[in-house]
């Protein structure tokens, strides 16, 4: 049996992938960090620029940036004295691909169940019209 990589069937991932996703989702769990990532989709930014929209200190923003960096969601570089943060999209794409897999699994399953239930209801109606008082399938 093949278990490498993501189990696309249910979105339940192999263990090594779980660890990486854990870091990504841990990083995404905080609204300030999500706002920072959204800001970085517009381009690189310094700590001062990233702090501006929030009523939190620059050291607090720096701590958030460290979490994002550990999760692989940003890269950091220097422009003279300023440290610039850049978005790394790949872990996010992987995370959402996996999540989409889980959601799609159940949505598609339930759509198939809708179709099956229509068929079962029609079968019941037919049987009931044919005089079967239980309306139950005996198959």
């Amino acid at each position: 049996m093949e278990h490498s990589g993501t189990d696309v069937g249910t979105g339940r991932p192999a263990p090594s992938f779980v660890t990486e996703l854990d870091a990504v989702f841990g990083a995404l769990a905080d609204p300030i960090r999500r706002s920072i990532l959204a800001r970085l989709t517009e381009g690189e930014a310094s700590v001062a620029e990233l702090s501006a929209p929030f009523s939190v200190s620059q050291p607090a923003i720096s701590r958030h940036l460290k979490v994002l960096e550990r999760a692989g969601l940003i890269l950091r570089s220097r422009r003279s004295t300023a440290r610039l943060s850049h978005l790394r999209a790949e872990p996010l794409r992987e995370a959402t691909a996996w999540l989409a897999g889980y959601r799609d699994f159940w949505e598609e399953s339930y759509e198939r169940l809708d179709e099956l239930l229509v068929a079962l209801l029609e079968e019941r109606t037919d049987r009931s019209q044919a005089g079967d008082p239980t309306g139950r399938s005996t198959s």
Partner: protein
Amino acid sequence: MTQMQVTAEPGVPQVITTRTFDAPRDLVFRAFTEPELLVQWLGPRKYTMTIERYDARDGGTWRYLHADDAGNAFGFHGVFHGDPSPEGFVQTFEFEGAPGNVSMDTLTLEEDGGTTTVRTNSVFQSVEARDAMVASGMEDGMSEGYDRLDELVAQLVATP
């Protein structure tokens, strides 16, 4: 029919989903507990589902496989706890690719005017296990957290 709703409360190792079906409860119950019906809907169409066993009674075990065209197969197994009834059932769920990571799933069926709402409550071994395995980013109905993720990713995908 309603959209599937997914709720994952922060700090609690569980995920709740709800979905309403346009059919009476006894039919929905049969579709969940009779293997010859279950095999017709569980999982995306691109996978072939094989049910090895599905013994829907207290202490009964189940195991099924989802196989893709490339020959990859993913196995799942678990145990029923208590006799399933049209009001619902309880089972454990384990993906064989991550042995020992088990969730306990409680499924309840509520009928209202010929429609049936299926509610699933999956309890994981820790918040971390839940977040990593299932919950964290599913968009609709998340009570906290990842509502901006889709928007963010849409921006990322649009960015070359």
